């Protein structure tokens, strides 16, 4: 397996005639944080479920920790942790009871169980609250606890399926700190998300659309590959009007709306704020409050890719 934690080969899943995952190939290195991006229904969760050994692929195969998802799903289950977008602990059990139950299911007992329980409590910052009912915890803390429980048996690989959906930004940040700690300890983390800014935390990323991989690489490589033009952020009072106005302007390569701001990928000749500013003025654009040259985000990449497909 040459140091790869996951090796995916022509993995395909069909539900009836619907092709959910269409012959994808990729590999995940040991210890990296691997991001899985894509819109809802792009096939992310289906792929994750196949890699966890709970959904049998229609064709192709994948090796997780060296085991085939087709023939050795039971061995995979012992070597992975999994946390889904839905909260997956028991609300009506106390924190401690949840930890003990899942620890027990993974065969931990005695000293080892106590040691790991303390680790989970500490990583979720819940030490001293062992007897609190899990259902009473706020969402962000619950997610951290769920992650701790998902890796209670110290698996070499953990799958996180949209772990932060519905969690506030601050909790999301501390959740990601926990992911980095895990990764630092050598655990391979595969995470799906549709928060594009989260993908910036990942090492390698793949972008899925309609069951296929449309782009892969590191965040900066993706940006370099797909956004070759200078990007400006324009703040305005009347974004929709402005967008309609300059959409077809000669200096516009790509334009997308983010609230009352828009990101404009301009022709290469416009590399400074004043250059694009005067170009906009000449074109008759009004109500512009501010223009900045920005570093493109993955969101720009994503939109560029989806647009390209649409055209």
């Amino acid at each position, binding site marked *: 397996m040459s140091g790869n934690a996951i090796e995916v080969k022509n993995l395909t899943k069909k539900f009836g005639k619907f092709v959910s995952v269409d012959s994808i190939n990729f590999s995940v290195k040991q210890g990296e944080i691997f991001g899985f991006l894509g819109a809802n229904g792009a096939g992310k969760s289906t792929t994750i479920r196949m890699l966890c050994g709970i959904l049998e692929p229609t064709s192709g195969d994948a090796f997780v920790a060296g085991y085939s998802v087709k023939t050795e799903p039971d061995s995979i289950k012992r070597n*992975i942790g999994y946390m889904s977008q839905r909260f997956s602990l028991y609300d009506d059990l106390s924190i401690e009871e949840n930890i003990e139950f899942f620890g*027990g299911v993974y065969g931990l007992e005695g000293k080892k169980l106590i040691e790991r329980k303390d680790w989970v409590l500490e990583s979720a910052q819940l030490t001293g609250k062992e007897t609190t009912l899990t259902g009473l915890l706020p969402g962000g803390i619950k997610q951290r606890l769920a992650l701790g429980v998902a890796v209670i048996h110290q698996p070499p690989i953990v799958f996180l399926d949209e772990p932060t959906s519905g969690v506030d930004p601050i909790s999301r940040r501390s959740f990601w700190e926990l992911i980095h700690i895990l990764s630092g300890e050598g655990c391979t983390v595969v995470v799906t998300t549709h928060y594009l800014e989260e993908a910036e935390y990942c090492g390698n990323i793949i972008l899925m659309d309609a069951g296929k991989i449309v782009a892969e690489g590191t965040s900066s490589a993706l940006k370099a590959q797909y956004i070759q033009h200078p990007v400006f952020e324009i703040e305005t009072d009347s974004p929709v009007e402005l967008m309609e106005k300059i959409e077809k302007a000669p200096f516009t390569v790509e334009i997308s709306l983010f609230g009352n701001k828009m990101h404009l990928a301009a022709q290469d000749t416009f590399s400074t704020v004043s250059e694009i500013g005067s170009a906009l003025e000449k074109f008759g654009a009004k109500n512009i409050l501010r223009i900045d040259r920005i570093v493109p985000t993955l969101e720009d990449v994503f939109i560029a890719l989806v647009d390209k497909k649409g055209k």
Partner: protein
Amino acid sequence: MKTIIHIVKKEFRQFRRDPKMFGIILIAPIMQLLFFGYAATLDVNTVHTMVYDRDNTETSRNFIRDFSGSGFFAIDYVAKNENEINEQIDKGNILICISIPREFEKRIERRETAPVQFIINGSDGNTANIAAGYAGVIAANFSKNIAADILGRQGKKVLPTGQITPEARVWYNPLMKTRFFMVPGIVAMLLSIITMLLTSLAVVKEKEIGTLEQLIVTPIKSYQLILGKLIPFAILGFVSVILVIAGMRVIFGIEVRGSIIFLLGNSFLFILSTLGLGLFISTISKTQQQAMMIAIFGVLMPMIYLSGFTFPIENMPESIQIISYFIPLRYFMTIIRGVVLKGTGFAELWGETFMLGGMGLAILLLASMRFRKKLE
């Protein structure tokens, strides 16, 4: 094995936090006992009666006194005209009206047949039947006495002739109380509800909140999951069975005449099928509401109607009797009534025991296979 214990332990911890569970397990058996013991009775103890006496003679009054003295008939109304009969029957105040025509006494004295009309509200056929039976017996006795009277007045003795006197001995339930018949059946009903309904709900609940998916990605094997989910409800079922048996004895003085061990053994065989059905329901339901509906209307009600719990199977049309052979509750009902009321055991009930065990194993195995397939 340890994994199963972990799951069972978890289930019990969840029960402890769910007050509804305690309600179902502790209060429901007692409530059912009281309902079926006191309220669900087919016995006719008091017949509300109206009298319309147009003759108004000594003989007619004697005739009425025989009714009021019987202990069954309560003369609640005396009608003055025929309209009142209709009125009271329509209102549901009376079950029977004894209508005595004019010349009742005179006809008897003339040694003619004296007709008396019983008007009976037959909307509840069973009760009407019983009331008509009682009334017929009283009237027959009355005319027997008239005959003896007349003979006596003529100085003649009633000659002893060869006669048949039926002497009925009612075994097992000498007072012929419906209660004795119904109450043991409650054991079976409760077992069905707890093991089938609660099991399906518990599994579907995990499906709903997403923990089932979490369990599937752990190394838990599906048989461990099934056993871990079923064992707690089997235990709860037995707790309620013991409660009902104790309640039967304390509240109604109904003792188990046969072997309690045999009864509990059969209870175990019975819950194999109800647990299996519960598991099956959980595989075809997405939400707890669905599971509840399917369990109650799809399985529980037909099962109870066709088991002989309330309606005797012998009186059903043949085609329905055949269906009832496929209902495990039918066998369990026979067993439990036999053991509790008649004191019968394996020697008499081996057929039922084997049917119960066979069906239980088959249902549980099929349901487990389906559950397993659904998981994967």
